């Protein structure tokens, strides 16, 4: 390393001294550039994994929320049907039980309405925060729950209904650059439901990861 300092190489022909230093500088330069190159690839892979996990967490949370909402609406609908049967029976045999049963029925209906409003608010928040909070995220809008309630009859508020045939699958997706995360919430395939589900028509909703839709559909319409 004398040649780097130059102090002890007094009298060394300048051509030789320069060539040695040049070679060493080149070696150091190549190593530094190579190191930065590899470090850049490491960083890029790390960011891809980080973004994928961020998207997965966000989409997963939304899918869980949708699944819980659907399950809750279904189970409360079932509770309302049972309460209405009880009210109808009590009207003839035990009229004193009708008012508390009606209050309970109205309470369940209110909770359902609040669940629907909460989902609508979540839909709005989803759009305002670009799905997962990054301005470069490209989310599909969250599925709309089109439940409606017919006007109350003599028994009280009826259960929620879906106009026409209710979809069996709801899809959620967010993309960020070349990373995508998608999930669907769907009715568990038939055959897995128990006796209770078969008799009552109460279906079990299940969330699972799925492959993303084409990039053209992964942006706002």
């Amino acid at each position: 390393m004398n040649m780097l300092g130059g102090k002890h190489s007094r009298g060394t022909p300048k051509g030789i001294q320069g060539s040695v230093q040049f070679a060493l500088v080149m070696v150091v330069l190549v190593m530094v550039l190579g190191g930065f190159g590899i470090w850049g690839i490491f960083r890029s892979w790390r960011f891809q994994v980080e973004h994928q996990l961020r998207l997965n967490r966000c989409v997963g949370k939304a899918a869980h929320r949708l699944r819980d909402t659907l399950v809750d609406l279904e189970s409360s609908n079932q509770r309302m049907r049972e309460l209405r049967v009880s009210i109808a029976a009590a009207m003839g045999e035990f009229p004193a039980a009708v008012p508390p049963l009606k209050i309970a029925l109205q309470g369940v209906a209110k909770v359902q309405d609040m669940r629907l409003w909460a989902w609508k608010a979540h839909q709005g928040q989803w759009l305002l925060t670009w799905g997962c909070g990054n301005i470069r995220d490209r989310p599909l809008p969250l599925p709309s729950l089109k439940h409606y309630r017919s006007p109350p009859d003599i028994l009280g508020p009826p259960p929620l209904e879906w106009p026409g045939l209710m979809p069996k699958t709801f899809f959620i997706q967010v993309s960020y650059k070349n990373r995508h995360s998608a999930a669907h919430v769907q009715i568990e395939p038939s055959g897995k439901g128990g006796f209770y589900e078969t008799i009552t028509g109460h279906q079990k909703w299940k969330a699972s990861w799925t492959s993303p839709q084409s990039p053209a559909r992964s942006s706002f319409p």
Partner: protein
Amino acid sequence: MIHHNQGQALFELILSSMVACLVIVLASSLLFRCWQRVQCAYLAFESAQQALIGETTFPYQVKVEFRGTAVHVSARCGREMERVELPFLEHARW
């Protein structure tokens, strides 16, 4: 005098080249190990992610198993081995 200086320059060149080669070999070995480790981690993660969404074909270094509530993926890249476990959505917790 000039002859003596030329000898010193040659000696310095050889010595510094040896040191440089040693550093290059050590650094390359270290970078290669790092490369394999990171590549393996990335490969395992990508394969686990693909397995979760229903893909069935994976690189030959990758072994995928569906066990319990998650997909377990192990990838071997040279002497490095990486294991990744990603949960099914129904069992994911955040």
